[in-house]
């Protein structure tokens, strides 16, 4: 499964909810405001680092750049819209709006 998350984990619990349902081999893609979850030194960094032991976590490059984020957690995979399309091609999709 590909899980897309588009909300900030500081404001919204959708990433947390998503994490209750991901399984080994699933992939999470952070888009829109969701990309802030990928940064270092935050109060949510441990949660994301822990999640990366189980699943791949991607962040959409265009959204990361738009927010001026430069310090991403080790293990975060940065991808572009083409990569987003490939992820959709490879997995079933659940959008955690």
């Amino acid at each position, binding site marked *: 499964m590909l899980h897309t998350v588009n909300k900030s984990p500081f404001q919204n619990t959708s990433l947390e909810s998503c994490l209750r349902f991901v399984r080994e081999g699933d992939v999470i893609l952070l888009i829109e405001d969701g990309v802030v979850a990928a940064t270092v030194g935050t109060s949510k960094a441990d949660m994301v680092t822990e999640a990366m032991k189980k699943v791949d976590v991607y962040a959409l490059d*265009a959204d990361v*750049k738009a927010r001026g984020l430069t310090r991403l957690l080790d293990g975060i995979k940065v991808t572009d819209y083409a990569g987003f399309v490939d992820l959709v091609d490879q997995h079933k999709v659940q959008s955690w709006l």
Partner: protein
Amino acid sequence: MAEELRKIMFTVRKPPHGTIYVYEGLEVKLIMAAYDADISVVFMDDGVYALQQGQKTGDLGVKGFEATYGVLVDYEISKVFVDRKSMEDRGMTVDDLVVIGEDEDTEEDIKPSVVDAEEISQMMSEQHNILCF
């Protein structure tokens, strides 16, 4: 009129780009600055991301507005505050913040002031009205 200037505060709590709240909120500040009012702006919660330096929105295909923050002081909006805990929770420091203007005398960069919750509560209680974005 000898009447005292009205205090108007803007609270910015949403992250930029995901929705237009922050951007259209900025438009309100710039307009309101032309009127006789005592304006202050407080960035808190995800609103602090609005002040992050180096936003490049080109790949999204949308206009950015980070540069506009650089002229806030020129627009005489100099009471710009950031909630300390919101920044810390997001791993941000003052170094991350955009410059909002230049000191006329010293030519030094002016950055938003980092303040604690109590100070923000106190300021809130002194306002005539508060607009949130």
